[in-house]
């Protein structure tokens, strides 16, 4: 092989490698994005079934109870407008409390129950998960708009 051919081969190989890797990364990226939805989104049924996503909000007061096996936990996540039932198997974070912000990762089951694979609460006492804050903000903005709407006409 001549030097030029060799260099050409090297460059072509390099480009092919870069293309393959870019394809791989972008493909993995697209498949594994986890979107965030609020309880209102779930009730409005704009949420994909059978795909993992995150929900956030407050743990509704008085909604937490453990199943008979001691491991399954049921609670409701609210954005102050609507609440969504959540079921989770396992140990909740130390800072999981009724009335506090929470974020859960999981998917929507038949019957509108959100099955969480992971539940996250705040890390310290002064912190609200940003997703939880966002859900409440959106719900309240929505509520304000509705009020305006009915008030105006």
């Amino acid at each position: 092989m001549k030097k030029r051919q060799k260099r050409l081969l090297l460059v072509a190989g390099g480009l092919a490698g870069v293309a393959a890797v870019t394809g791989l990364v972008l493909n993995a990226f697209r498949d594994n994005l986890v979107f965030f939805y609020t309880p209102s989104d779930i009730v409005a049924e704009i949420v994909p079934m059978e795909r993992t996503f995150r929900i956030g909000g407050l743990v509704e007061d008085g909604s937490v109870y453990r199943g008979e096996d001691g491991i399954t936990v049921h609670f409701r996540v609210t954005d102050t407008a609507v609440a969504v039932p959540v079921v989770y198997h396992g140990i909740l974070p130390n800072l999981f409390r009724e009335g506090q912000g929470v974020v859960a990762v999981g998917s929507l089951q038949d019957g509108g129950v959100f099955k969480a694979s992971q539940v996250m609460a705040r890390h310290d006492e002064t912190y609200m998960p940003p997703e939880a804050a966002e859900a409440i903000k959106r719900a309240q903005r929505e509520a304000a708009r509705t009020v305006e709407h009915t008030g105006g006409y």
Partner: protein
Amino acid sequence: MAAELGLFALILAFLLAIAQGTLPLIGAARGDVALMAVGRSAAYGQLVFLGIAYAMLTYAFVTDDFSIAYVANHSNSLLPTQYKISGVWGGHEGSLLLWILILGFWSAAVATFSRSLPREVLARVLGVMGLVAIGFIGFTLFTSSPFERLIPAALEGRDLNPMLQDPGLIIHPPMLYMGYVGFSVAFAFAIAALIGGRLDAAWARWSRPWTAVAWAFLTIGIGLGSWWAYYVLGWGGWWFWDPVENASFMPWLMGTALLHSLAVTEKRGGFKNWTVMLAIMTFSLVLLAAFLVRSGVLTSVHAFAVDPDRGLYLLAFMAVVVAGSLTLFAWRAGKVGLGGGFEIVSRESALLTNNVLLAVSAAAVLLGTLYPLFLDAFGLGKISVGPPYFEAVFLPLMLPLLLLLGFGPRLRWKQDSPTEQLWRLRWIFAVSLVFGMIWPLFVGSWSFLAGIGAFLGLWIIGSSLKDLVDRIRPRRDSQQTVGTRVGRLGRSYVGMQFAHIGVGLVVIGITFVLGYDDERDVRMAVGETVEVGGYAFRLERLEEVQGPNFDADQATVVVYRDGQRMTTLTPQMRYYFSQQQPMAHTSLHRGFFRDLYVNMGEELPGNAWVMRVYYKPYMNWVWAGAILMGLGGFLAASDRRYRIRVRREDEVPDEDAKLAAAGAVDSGNSKGDAEPKPAG
């Protein structure tokens, strides 16, 4: 009084940093010896004053001076003394003070150990370090002073976050910061070389040991962080692809690429531009890490309180550093000569492949870490990128890298025969493939992926050991004994092999712990037994115990294997006096082949608790591998040839002579290729 003294010392250090960041650079440009000499004294002075500031804050912690806001927020009179001392870096302001103290330490270390450098080079390096110091000390002074007074003073401190009251925290941040900040030395050398237009093998040789030490610290720091998360966070996880972990992992990946690229620049004079670029990128990623953690854009255990000023300052600092160094690069890099050519199969191309794969990995992590932040910042919705993305990307990128690692270090520079090297390693390859494929059977049910992981780990360890043995074994016709041959191995070579064996251990550990861990969340009442990973865990009793600054519920769990009593674990649920939140305290039994891990969850009616009972096979192999990698880095940095140059400027160290000779034999036009070309 301590606060005022500390602040005063900090201001003096800032002024010295300004002197260090300007005068030596001006001196180097003008050839003014006196101005150049300012660099060293300024570096020492800065270290002294930063030391005083740091000592003052520590004094305030130890004496419970709650009139200082930072102390009141991060300490408590009941806090055990060792945590008062480590609590100094338990929050944003104090950890930043530690950061700049370490920066001062690195500057002083460069001033001490680089006496042999040409005067201009040392002046430029210290000048650039001074500029970096201006940025960070300024950040501390103007946005995050740890010496702010609290008026009126608090009667009692709010206490250190209980998660941080742990021996792991005492050493994790200092190690990590040694690594992060250490890369500023590699950066300073690169920028100094660009300014001076002298980017040659000598530059790479000066820069290499510093990079190796920084890399070793960062490796150990990340390992410690993972080790800490594993038992303190109580989920049994040791890597979450959390943005903050990614923030430390990106400079590590880039720094690893830099370390390997420097080898080519030092030995062959090649990849110069690329090496400089990597040094700039690595340090930029360090700044990005500081920004991610300290600006409040992320929320995690590591993220400190939100303050828009801080984020803005760091973003501006990062922009100045990146834009400035890239401009300099664009302006000066053209003057840097190319190194010797090489064939497709050669050590250069193996290292090039290593670099490309590592840089692409870092870019993939960057994408996954920043994309959600961008969307959020522009109000385009909230998304997150979870572990599945990173796993999907990393697996295909790491497989070729690990495979290559087995024979890359054996390849000759410039040109080598692929068949010859593969032939020499055929037994290692066959044996590690067979054992790798069988090994999973002893851990659990067989899986192909676990077999591949075990094979790659064994392949790396086996080929590294074989290379070591080949070099130690005396040649048939020579008089040398094993002893003399061991003595002649360069430390940088041995360090490299250590680090590579460490990689092999990490690969095996990760493979088995990911593939075969057994995690059960179960309800356990007193007297009940749970079977996990072939071990029987029996809850003996529940009781209340007291610690120095907490009360706790404690469970006593006895572990049996085949009816034999093995060990007793005592996990606790702690209630710290100063906090509302309870904290689970994990109990672990560590072993060579597996960890047993018990954690308390929630109290249930009927004298029972929800418990986390985990079986983690080969977990310690991951930590052991990380330690070995770090040790390898230190060993490599201590190589004789990095120090010996001082006295014998004209003599070429033997290893290089050998390589140069090998190059001469391989090619026709020897000298020009084997030796780095002068710049310009």
